[in-house]
């Protein structure tokens, strides 16, 4: 910290506890996922907060680890790492990192289930849910390949929404809510916005872009057609699901 010493007005900061920098977040641009992921990660974090109790995160994506850790305060979270060995450096994560859940949780967040291992992973993930606990799954939709870019975007083929819903129902979990982020009409407005900009009407372009954001989040059936979907399911208060 040479420059601090050069200042006559400065004090050394060695020995002071500064917060660690989240891994993979060296710059402002890299620290923010795209809009669908902002929505989806915020939705999961909000549900976890509202539910209270213990939350776990099951993922194979280090960026999601950093993002959810930043949102929920990772020291209290258990990370179920699904990405195989070696477990990557996850920086800000201060909680336990495990291969399968080690405790019952009231909320499990599962991001981008890989199609090849979804069935196996689901067994492991849902095992930790307590009666009445919630499972929130972030899953890519049909428009994902078309529109989702930037940090946080999926890397491997992920399970489809219908297959995920079948898995959830087979384990006697009830689907509470399906939210979708980024669907065709919203993207059409974004496209129209760029057209307006090109023909010299940025005023209309801005209005179209606002319309794009107004229509970005949908729920229910429309969510099935979105770029990214968050499925929220709950284990019945008395059902055992796949724990046996």
């Amino acid at each position: 910290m040479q420059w601090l010493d050069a200042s006559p007005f400065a004090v050394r900061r060695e020995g002071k506890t500064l917060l660690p920098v989240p891994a993979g977040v060296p710059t402002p641009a890299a620290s923010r996922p795209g809009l669908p992921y902002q929505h989806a990660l915020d939705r999961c974090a909000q549900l976890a907060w509202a539910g209270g109790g213990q939350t776990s995160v099951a993922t194979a994506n280090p960026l999601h680890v950093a993002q959810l850790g930043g949102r929920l305060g990772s020291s209290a979270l258990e990370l179920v790492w699904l990405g195989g060995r070696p477990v990557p450096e996850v920086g800000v994560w201060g909680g336990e990192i495990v291969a399968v859940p080690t405790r019952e949780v009231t909320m499990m967040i599962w991001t981008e289930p890989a199609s090849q291992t979804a069935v196996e992973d689901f067994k492991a993930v849902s095992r930790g849910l307590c009666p009445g606990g919630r499972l929130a799954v972030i899953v890519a939709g049909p428009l994902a390949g078309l529109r989702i870019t930037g940090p946080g975007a999926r890397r491997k083929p992920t399970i489809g929404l219908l297959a995920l819903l079948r898995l959830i129902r087979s384990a006697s979990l009830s689907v509470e809510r399906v939210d979708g982020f980024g669907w065709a009409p919203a993207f059409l407005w974004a496209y129209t916005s760029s057209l307006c900009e090109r023909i010299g009407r940025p005023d209309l372009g801005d209005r179209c872009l606002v319309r794009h954001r107004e229509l970005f989040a949908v729920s229910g059936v429309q969510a099935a057609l979105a770029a990214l979907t968050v499925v929220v399911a709950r284990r019945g208060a008395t059902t055992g699901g796949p724990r046996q």
Partner: protein
Amino acid sequence: MNGSTIGQVVANLDSWLDTMRGTGGYGGPVSHWWQNCLDYGGSGLDWRYEGIVLGYLTLHARTGEAGWLAKARRAGDDLLRGQLANGSFRHSAFELNPATGGTPHEAACALALLHLARALRTVDPAGAASYLAAAEHNLRSFWIGQLWDERTQSFRDAPATPSFVPNKGATLAEALLMLAQLVGDTGLAERYALPTLKAVLSHQLRGGEGDGAIAQNSFGTRRVLKFFPYYVARCVPGLLEGYRWSGDRHLLDGALRAMGFVLRQRYEDGSFAQVVYPGGRRNRYPQWVAATGDILRAADMLRPHGLDADTETTLAWLLKGRRASGAIVTAYGFAEQSRQGRPSPVAELRDLLPVCGWADKAFRYLAGLVPEGRPLPPAAVGPVEEPCMARGRRGVWRETPALLQLELDGVPAYSWRKGDAWATTVAPEAVWK
């Protein structure tokens, strides 16, 4: 508007700000032109700290009461506790929270810390030094270390993208000039701040109806010709600070022209258009209410330099936004953001939402108007309940010292318990970014 009325408004705002504090500092949801942040309500170490710290320092200076200095320090301590090892601040991106590396937010935080350091220099040198060190760490590591573009001699908005945003550059230049003064390093001014202000001026229109307007941003050499009166006004303090430092009259001239443009975009009721485009086209809504404090402040700063403008109607516009909670509402006309028609008489959720990072602008400005040498009156605040629209549905908006809530058909559609990191209820009608 007499001084005692203003004193009451400021006392109420202070009381409201206290209700918005959580573990890590001042929190709450955000509505904005670019994006909204309703789910996350935890602390945001962003530009709200500029107005909060400077507002409390101003109150301390005007009333002589030690309590205001303590509140400024408490806010400064939030920033110290939330600083990351790389110099950035936690959750510093305002409408993009919870994210870090927010611009101009981190520069605004650094500026707040520098003012605090200056205020404490003689009374508590050790305390002053810790605030100064935090600001210096941020400015050198984050801004100069990551965002300085040697080729263009200005600061980028993102490290990998050749880009520049004048209002952000102006805030940053203001902070760099203050740091230069406090640490006696003129190189900070000559090498970074003054070239950045030159870049601000290079985005300013000269002549014609748009004279004084400053383009919102640029990518490489491409200027984005959108002119936000609010952001043009945000350039003024930095340009003036540059003029004070260098005596370069181009900077003063740029500031005066900028404010001339802003005042030409004012409506009869004292409000301003949100965006002005080439050819005079406008997107009027949403119109800022609390944030007009920054415009009023910029105008007042220019009066000693020859600005002759009556800003009473704008002050009245701002004060019309007062609510019983002590807060000042954010905007008027959010529901018309995409249509730009006449707003309904019933305000939209995002209009009524009281936001720390907008209310701080009103707080800072009004703090400068309270009578000198007299304590503020006790706060007189109460709960808020009023009709509200959300996505075309009519509901009820409520605020208490502990809660913000939107109710639709008798059912909570949005609830944020003050101090919580996240909202407890976010129905589809309240899912907005």
